[in-house]
């Protein structure tokens, strides 16, 4: 069986690549230190496969056909699809993890999750931005799980947490010696394309990070109304919650939090045995 050996979460804000001057040197130090720490975790755990849990922002998935939970089972994916992100469009091709993807689909069916098989999906900033810093050689295998955080109605946070269980069991069932890391991306509180863009809800973020660090299932009670009030981009915290749901109650540590740049920025790592 494969082994879940690392679990982490990070913001995926595209400005890290497209507008780096937006951030102060002090905040860049936090980003750089955080990414370095997570790179060390990946290396120490000898990770060869990363399950990336993020939403997709309509660069490849169309609003006319957007699954609640999609499993990208292609052998390769290419991106970024944005023409504004920084790395040239389609300059990055990554190796997929189709066998693990099929395992996730099977485990989902066993557990009452109607997951959607996706073929090759163009990579967008939700995937590219954190991995640009975490695996800059793009030399691992990557299974992308796309979770709808952008087009209501969205899955409940509880559902996102339970999806984590599906992922964990699929890894266990996978007949492979692979060493697998989970990476949830997005959040934390922020507003995109809305009048309140630039507003950060530090109280929401603080409470969320406390719940995630303790792996407290009370996180499943976070409501759409609370996330709407914290900013429409806040719905991406579901991707962090899925990682929490996968690690069987393991506690976590927050590497940093900063709300000075108009978005709740954070990274964390769970203590996976």
């Amino acid at each position, binding site marked *: 069986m494969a082994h879940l050996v690392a679990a982490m979460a990070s913001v995926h804000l595209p400005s890290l690549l*497209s507008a780096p001057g937006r951030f102060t040197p002090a905040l860049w130090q936090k980003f750089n230190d955080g990414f370095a720490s997570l790179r060390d975790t990946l290396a120490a755990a000898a990770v060869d496969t990363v399950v990336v849990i993020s939403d997709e*922002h*309509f*660069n*490849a998935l*169309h*609003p*006319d056909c957007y699954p609640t939970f999609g499993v990208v089972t292609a052998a390769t994916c290419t991106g970024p*699809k*944005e*023409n*504004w992100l920084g790395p040239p469009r389609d300059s990055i091709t990554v190796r997929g993890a189709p066998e693990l993807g099929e395992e996730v689909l099977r485990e989902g069916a066993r557990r009452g999750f109607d997951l959607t098989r996706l073929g090759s999906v163009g990579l967008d900033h939700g995937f590219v931005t954190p991995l640009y810093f975490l695996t800059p050689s793009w030399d691992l295998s990557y299974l992308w799980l796309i979770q709808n955080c*952008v*087009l209501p109605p969205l899955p409940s946070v509880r559902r996102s947490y339970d999806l984590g269980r599906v992922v964990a069991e699929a890894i266990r069932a996978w007949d492979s010696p692979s060493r697998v890391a989970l990476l949830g991306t997005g959040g934390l509180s922020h507003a*995109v*394309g*809305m*009048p*309140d*863009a*630039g*507003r950060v809800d530090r109280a929401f973020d603080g409470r969320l990070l406390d719940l995630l660090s303790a792996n407290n299932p009370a996180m499943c009670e976070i409501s759409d109304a609370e996330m709407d009030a914290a900013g*429409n981009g806040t719905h991406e915290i579901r991707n962090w919650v899925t990682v929490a749901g996968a690690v069987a109650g393991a506690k976590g540590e927050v590497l940093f939090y900063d709300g000075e740049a108009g978005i709740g920025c954070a990274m964390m790592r769970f203590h996976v045995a």
Partner: protein
Amino acid sequence: MRAQALNALLVDLMRREETLGEYERDPDALAARHGLSDEERERLKAKDMGWLYVHGVHPYILTQFALSIRYDMKQLTTQLREATGYREAAS
């Protein structure tokens, strides 16, 4: 989804250099191909972001449209606030 034709056009523009080029060269033809109303066409040509937001362009699509055309993102937020009467809460 509201503003279906507008959202579809902008998603295409986000993804394809050809569509971005057509928006810049011949936005009337692009709008006609996507079945935009006269008002939608004119507001899109004018980059009236506040109107587009209020009339149903998805916030993520609106933002990435703005980024694709190298729009001033502070100006985007200003237009959204003016269109909606949003007032920042006092800190």
